[in-house]
């Protein structure tokens, strides 16, 4: 067992409260000064099945999925078979022998009986089992009791003294058992605490997108629920009154995107949040945005396709879908935050870019990023106020006046002396429908000219690792997390990674970075290497070495390390 980096996995049925443990434990650990990271995998069902969450506790910052399990807590009999391939002889299994002991085969593993159910019953009933579990782990880690006690008070006092009291009891029983275990199980942990961490924030990717939207001035969201993107809708709904956000659950995705465009037209800063299948329905709307030169922010949370696919799993399979979405030709921007911090900053930026350049801007995430969380320094909110790129119109206002940079000042109805005319048909400078075919050509040129301004502020790819690399990993979005940690483990001075957080248009430095590498390795979570194809269009280079995964789970640190080692030793 790695003494400075612990991986705890809890597995059970949907509805057993794994998420409660996850929230409770990670907050407590962070308050205690530990770095934490949590990621979950779950089935598309409300009860039953097998879901699991991995919680990492570490001396260093960690932000990626690890195959290795140091401590495993199976909550039902299926949990062991569900994750058996990840258990090793090192794994410490904390199992309620009374409850599931007879039903599972744990021959050959290090199993310790922890009577979660009985302890919970003693505390007041089966629903306290989760608190017992937190207590056990807190006890094993030697956390001071005050911290989980604070959490219990903070969370449960609204539910009454009785609930608080019983949780306290459950916690106490758990911690006691845990302390005992720490000694008896030969656990030899040496995870460094850092008091600064206790003041950090913990946010999931989806919350970071939501807060980034609020920071970007989002005041309108219309969407239709769809995993893994619904969290943005619920987050903004929760804060609708406070931030003044119009939040509407549309009847379908087509309505959602058309509402968002109507909202921008009337002066709002609107977004939609969806997944691939829902986005597929929005493409005509994206094309409309292109034609009317409307800003639009689209959060596209990816999950495995085609069609309904695996609704609660992760993939990076919709890059080309977004890039080529909508009929006809018009500019767009695609951002792909890989870290939770980037999810915040880039979503904020998406609103700025959309508004300034009058184009659709995509924020592409995936389930693994949306649901993962870790501790981090609070975001920098200083010195920003949302710029609105709208103008007060004058009497002769023409929405599509042709300008050298392709951008026409954007007016909105009711603000100024002009009229604001939009048309989905080809139109003249005023916005009225036209069949003047020379003007058509000029209007296409005008719309495409907007690309110039966009190209002037592309976010460059981030080079991670030694500048003198000879082997270069290219990746985009959330894959960077496992890549980064695998690289740290490998510690090679010839290996770097180029992390793209803007995937369209690509930064001009891209070709230079690639040219410097002797070997390029493309890593992405899909089956056809979509990003590699993009790089080929941009650079002409064929990337032969690829690490692709498309079973619905994110890359683990170990598999990246293993596959990279394989490729690099060739």
């Amino acid at each position, binding site marked *: 067992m790695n003494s400075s980096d612990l991986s705890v996995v809890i597995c059970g049925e949907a509805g057993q409260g794994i998420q409660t443990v996850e929230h409770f434990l990670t907050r407590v650990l962070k308050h205690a000064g530990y770095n934490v990271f949590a990621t979950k995998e779950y089935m598309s069902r409300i009860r039953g099945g097998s879901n699991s969450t991995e919680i990492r506790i570490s001396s260093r910052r960690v932000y990626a999925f690890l195959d290795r399990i140091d401590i495993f807590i199976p909550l039902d009999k299926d949990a062991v078979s569900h994750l058996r391939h990840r258990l090793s002889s090192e794994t410490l299994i904390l199992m309620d022998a009374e409850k599931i002991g007879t039903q599972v085969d744990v021959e050959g593993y290090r199993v310790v009986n922890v009577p979660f159910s009985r302890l919970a019953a003693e505390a007041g009933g089966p629903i306290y089992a989760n608190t017992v579990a937190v207590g056990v782990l807190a006890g094993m880690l030697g956390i001071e009791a005050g911290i989980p006690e604070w959490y219990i008070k903070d969370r449960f006092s609204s539910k009454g003294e009785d609930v608080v009291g019983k949780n306290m009891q459950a916690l106490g029983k758990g911690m006691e058992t845990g302390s005992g275990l720490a000694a008896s199980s030969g656990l030899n942990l040496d995870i460094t605490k850092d008091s600064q961490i206790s003041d950090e924030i913990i946010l999931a990717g989806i919350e970071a997108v939501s*807060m980034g939207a609020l920071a970007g001035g989002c005041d309108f969201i219309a969407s239709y629920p769809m995993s893994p993107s619904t969290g943005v809708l619920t987050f903004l709904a929760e804060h609708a009154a406070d931030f003044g956000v119009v939040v509407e659950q549309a009847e379908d995705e087509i309505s959602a995107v058309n*509402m968002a465009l109507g909202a921008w037209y009337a*002066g709002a800063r609107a977004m939609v949040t969806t997944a691939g299948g829902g986005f597929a329905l929005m493409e005509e709307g994206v094309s409309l945005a292109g034609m009317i030169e409307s800003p639009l922010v689209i959060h596209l949370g990816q999950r495995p396709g085609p069609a309904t696919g695996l609704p609660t799993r992760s993939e990076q399979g919709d890059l080309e879908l977004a890039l080529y979405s909508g009929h006809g030709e018009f500019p767009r921007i695609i951002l792909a935050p890989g870290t939770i911090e980037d999810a915040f900053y880039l979503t904020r930026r998406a609103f700025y870019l959309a508004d300034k350049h009058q184009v659709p801007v995509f924020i592409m995430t995936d389930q693994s990023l949306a649901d993962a969380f870790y501790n981090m320094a*609070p975001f920098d*909110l200083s010195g920003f106020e949302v710029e609105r790129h709208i103008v007060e119109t004058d009497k002769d206002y023409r929405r599509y006046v042709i300008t050298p940079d392709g951008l026409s000042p954007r007016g*909105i109805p009711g603000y100024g002396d002009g009229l604001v005319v939009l048309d*989905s048909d080809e139109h003249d400078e005023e916005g*009225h429908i036209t069949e003047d075919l020379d003007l058509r050509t000029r209007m296409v040129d005008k719309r495409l000219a907007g690309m110039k301004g966009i190209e002037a502020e592309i976010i460059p790819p981030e080079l991670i690792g030694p500048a003198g690399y000879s082997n270069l990993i290219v990746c985009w979005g959330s894959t960077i997390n496992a890549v980064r940690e695998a690289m740290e483990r490998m510690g090679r001075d010839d290996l770097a990674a180029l992390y793209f957080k803007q995937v369209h248009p690509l930064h001009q430095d891209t070709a230079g970075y690639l040219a410097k590498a002797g070997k390029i390795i493309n890593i992405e979570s899909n089956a056809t290497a979509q990003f590699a194809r993009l790089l080929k269009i941009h650079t002409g280079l064929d990337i032969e070495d690829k690490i692709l995964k498309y079973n619905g789970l994110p890359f683990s640190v170990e598999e990246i390390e293993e596959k990279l080692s394989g490729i690099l030793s060739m």
Partner: protein
Amino acid sequence: MDARLYDMGNIDIAWCPGCGNFSILTILKDALAELEIDPHDLVIVSGIGQAAKTPHYLKCNLFNGLHGRALPPATAVKAANPRLTVIAEGGDGDMYAEGGNHFIHAIRRNPDITNVVHNNMVYGLTKGQASPTSQKGFVTPVQITGVYVEPFNPLAVAIALDASFVARAFAGDQEQTREILKQAVRHKGYALVDIFQPCVTFNKINTYKWFKEHTYYLDETHDPRDRVAAFARATESERLPLGVFYISPDRAVFEDNLLAYRDNKEPLYLRSTDRQEKLSNLLNSSK
């Protein structure tokens, strides 16, 4: 207000001579002028089709969007800036076929907008296929032996959805249609005005004469607050009633109930965009 305020002057109008749309355009301008609505405070959202070209032919702010998709942007415009007067306009194909789902759900939401549908019982712009309201037996290049599916009954459906305001009019009668339209725009909440509109090119059955002969006006004996009576009237098929069928007594208005307006009545674009403090608090709650 002078209806000429809405006039575009000498423009090329893409409709066929004799088309019922001309009449609706005049009615619309007159009604808006009589209601003293400043063109700058008016937004007309339309889809695609012959009817959907209407807003190009009067002075107003306009959002001529996608086929079938007028209602969602219209709802959003009103939600983003409730001070605007919003009209969603289009043809029967636009609103009831491609846009059918939005029609249903806009009625449920009940934004304070007026939904004007030019019902010519045919697809005009795409050259004469059946529309949802095409009558049985109507022969077209696609329905070569005549329509045999049940025509869509927009009024009955709207009443079934407890729509806030439901009316039918006829483009051939400018006076009464103007009055109905004015009432619809004045009505607070979603208001449907389905207007029978002769298409002189592709619908040789439902002509001016046909509409004249097959319609009559609801009179005072009809109580528009009586939903079941309104429904019965809406299902009449021998002669088709015109007028205000139904006004729902107590529908919540969409934008009035949005949380965004709970503490602040300003249109969204007029609000401060400094959210630093609120964001800080939010971040702190994530500690």
